[in-house]
């Protein structure tokens, strides 16, 4: 059976034109997609069937009882992950955090958390990806490498995509890459600027000053010549519709949210000349959804704590890495994420010392260290749900094959029931 217009839930592009072939409840072929997505679909359905407690296979009721006891006995539980599950499950996870008085944080805090803080300082002139496809004649990629990380971004949305005002695709656009090293993306660019590592803030500030008509008495800023900056600004001011996509090369380098606030300010100021917009390159398939659900239920997009009975927000205090590194969390529920593989050593070590519960289709590194492992279905493969694209456009994830595992949403419901009683 051929299923068309399947949404790939893997990365923030959420391409929704994929064709998946299914035989005997198995995915046999995936076409019209990238290699990452193909591999994801072909291997997404191989996780364990039974929950485990302390490494031993148990039945669901027992695993859920142990889970509820750990969470109810915890004085300071942490719920973390969320970016690779559906918004339906995210909503339940927040309800559980509210009920427990827990901290809750998404993987945003280690990727585009600084973007959020930058937006809270400065605002964000943005648009949906279709506006880029149809209008943008100047596309800047700053500190990101979509050719490798968001493989179909160029073709579907930003570079070779043919739109109403860009009928010739690539030929109708000027592509600029700003990065500290050459990448596969920079090799396709018309203009490549290579600032010194950690100098994005200086470069952005210089650009704002030049835009305001200030003159420079130095020849270069942060490794980029002023002549290059003036040239880029001229292109920005004179384009029809410009966009800066940015990634962790600016959010997670020195200055963090200050880099982003500066970038956002520059984009806002360019609107005095022409239409200019910007967008973070969100990584995980539904990390934008995690921001959305947390925000509508609590008011804040990440780094939230309910210990006082109401939501409090404080990045640096209630962010998962900090709660773990300071050994404040005394139990953890990890949903669709692998912090042991990605967190700094001190945080990862503490996570393996406290009782940890993992909801995930796969046995990842975190699951290997966890007390309780609850294997769940894969949203977009063996469960239906909702995910938000990097531009916050929500898309429906399909159930393509059946699986014995329950969904994250179902499991969280069971946990909530047990914690309540």
């Amino acid at each position, binding site marked *: 059976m051929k299923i*068309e*217009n399947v*949404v790939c839930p893997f990365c923030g592009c959420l391409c*929704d*034109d994929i064709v998946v072939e299914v035989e005997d409840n198995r995915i046999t072929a995936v076409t019209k997609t990238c290699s990452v997505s193909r591999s994801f679909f072909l291997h997404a359905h191989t996780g364990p069937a039974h929950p485990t407690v302390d490494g031993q296979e148990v039945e669901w009721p027992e695993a859920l009882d142990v889970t509820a006891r750990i969470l109810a006995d915890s004085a300071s539980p942490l719920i973390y992950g969320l970016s690779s599950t559906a*918004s339906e499950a995210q*909503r339940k996870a927040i*309800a559980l955090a*509210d*009920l427990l008085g827990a901290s809750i944080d998404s993987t945003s805090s280690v990727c585009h958390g600084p973007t*959020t803080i930058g*937006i*809270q*300082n*400065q*605002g*964000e*002139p*943005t*648009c*949906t*990806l*279709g*506006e880029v*496809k*149809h*209008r943008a004649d100047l596309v800047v990629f700053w500190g990101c490498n979509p050719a490798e990380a968001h493989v179909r971004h160029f073709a*579907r*949305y930003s570079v070779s995509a043919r739109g*109403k005002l860009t009928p010739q695709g690539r030929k109708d656009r000027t592509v600029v890459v700003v990065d500290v090293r050459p990448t596969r993306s920079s090799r396709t660019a018309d203009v490549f600027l290579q600032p010194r590592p950690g100098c994005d803030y200086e470069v952005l500030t210089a650009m704002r000053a030049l835009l305001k008509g200030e003159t420079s008495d130095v020849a270069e800023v942060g490794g980029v010549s002023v002549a290059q900056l003036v040239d880029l600004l001229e292109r920005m001011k004179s384009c*029809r*519709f410009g966009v800066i996509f940015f990634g962790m090369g600016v959010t997670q380098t020195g200055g963090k949210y200050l880099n982003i606030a500066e970038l956002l300010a520059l984009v*806002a100021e360019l*609107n005095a000349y*022409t*239409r200019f*917009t910007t967008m973070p390159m969100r990584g995980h398939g539904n990390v934008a959804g995690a*921001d*959305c*659900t947390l*925000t*509508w*239920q*609590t*008011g*804040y*997009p990440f780094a939230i704590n*309910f210990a*006082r*009975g*109401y*939501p409090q*927000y404080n990045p640096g205090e209630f962010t998962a890495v900090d709660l773990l590194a300071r050994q404040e969390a005394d139990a953890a529920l990890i949903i669709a994420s692998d912090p042991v593989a990605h967190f700094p050593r001190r945080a990862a070590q503490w996570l393996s010392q406290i009782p940890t519960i993992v909801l995930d289709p796969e046995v990842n590194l975190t699951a290997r260290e966890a007390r309780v492992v609850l294997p769940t279905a894969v949203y977009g493969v063996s469960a239906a749900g*909702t995910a*938000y694209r990097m531009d*916050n*456009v*929500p*898309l*429906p994830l399909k159930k393509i094959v059946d699986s014995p595992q329950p969904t994250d949403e179902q499991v969280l419901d069971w946990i909530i029931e047990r914690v309540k009683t």
Partner: protein
Amino acid sequence: MIGIINGEVYDPQNGINGEVRDIWIEDGKIASPPGLGGTGGGGTEGGQIIDAAGLVVMPGGVDIHSHIVGAKVNAGRKFRPEDHRDHVRSRTAYTRSGSGYTVPSTFMTGYGYAEMGYTTVMEAATAPLVARHTHEELDDTPMVDKGAFITMGNNHFIMKCIRDGQREKARHYVAWLLGASKGYAIKIVNPGGVENWKWGRNVGELDDEVIGFGVTPRQIVTTLAWINDELGLPHMPHIHGINLGQTGNARTTVETIEALEGHRAHLCHLQFLSYGGEPGKSIRSGAEQVARAVNEHPNVTIDVGQVVFGQATTMTSDGPLQYRLHQLSGNKWINDDVEGETGGGIVPMQYKRNNLINAVQWLIGLELFLLIDDPWQVFLTTDHPNAGPFFCYPQVIKLLMDREYRAEMLEGIHRRARKGTLLPEIDREYSLYEIAIVTRAGTARALGLQNKGHLGVGADADVTIYHKLDDKEAMFARPYLVLKDGQVVVRDGQIVREHQGRTLYVAPPYDPGIETDLRAHFEECYTVSFDNYPVAPEYLSRGEVIPCA
């Protein structure tokens, strides 16, 4: 069966003006009195009697225009942590926690409306591309019945149809779009101006051209007004006109009313569109001119968007307006252009008594309330959170009902604003009957909600019971009881029971043949496929289709 007995009832839809009546409820609906052979013939055994002697009984409040959920509201929440920090709500055994003042979280919004005696709220603007998001949030907005208006005033498919003279095709498209997005009404925001903003421009006159389409704001408004009547939609086209916030816009507002040529329409937050004076010059009230036009056009209803002094968050689909507010205020700015459909922006704002412009805006709102003769044509809103948060409605009610309070407030505003205002000469005070019209009966009627806004047999048993107090702000801020679908959900201004309200939407019939055109349109214009666009019914945990005429 529940009886609310001996209450002083205000039910303008049924002509009841403060008479002592008993209201009976069965199965979530208003029922006939027991023992009269009506629906409630079984007597009151096992029932509950609420003695409302000395209390005021009204239908639950119905808000016709409020920004409570969806992409824009959520972006407003996300970028305003400073709005939330000091305004929190703790969880209880049966309610969720939340935070936010002008942009509260969804649960807090639902609770806040119910605690103010409101039981139905309409989300004022949703881009259809992100309607799925809106419905996810509506599902997390408890207590009230709700629905969402779908922005169409800058929609490429509609503008193409107008350009090609294909009104019928546009009609089928609108019908399809409302069903696909599970929307309640046609919303028009700055017709053509938002599309032009994508070129860094705007429109200023009804006959200006929309770039790339060769159509005009006038054509967009009249086509959608015609479609609305053809489809027999329960509500009217809900119009946010051109030039919002610009001095001199009273003229284009009156021209818009005249352009409708008798078609029904609702013009929203008209305070922001009733400015006199010359474009670019200082602001003056144009309320008299606009009120006169409304008085002369019974086909039109309006809501005011009354300014409340204090914090606000401006958020509209009117992209160029929001950029202007950003430049004027220097405050942080979100812009969000939506492919092929609309745009939007958000800018935090503070309205100050001693700011000349803000004081004039405040006066204009009150003048509209008091100069429009028929309360069935003018409704209470603050365009939440644009002119102030919704929970300030009781303060606005007091301004309307209490001339002395109005005079006292007038003393406190910018001196130059007081010069030349009509307000001191207007003696009119709203009665409780008129308040019931502008906050529930009139809004329900304008929305075409036949089971809302009144207490006749068969109506939804959404009832609010107030203490009768001299201080009308205190009276309306804290109802004694609120019943939703016949169950007590609020007592003494506090939630006592969580309730999941319905999501109301329309599903007018359309020619399925249009889907061929639509598939081509999606290939050409969107970055999502046609099949992934419609919102499935599963997104509405309690959906209800409101029939078209």
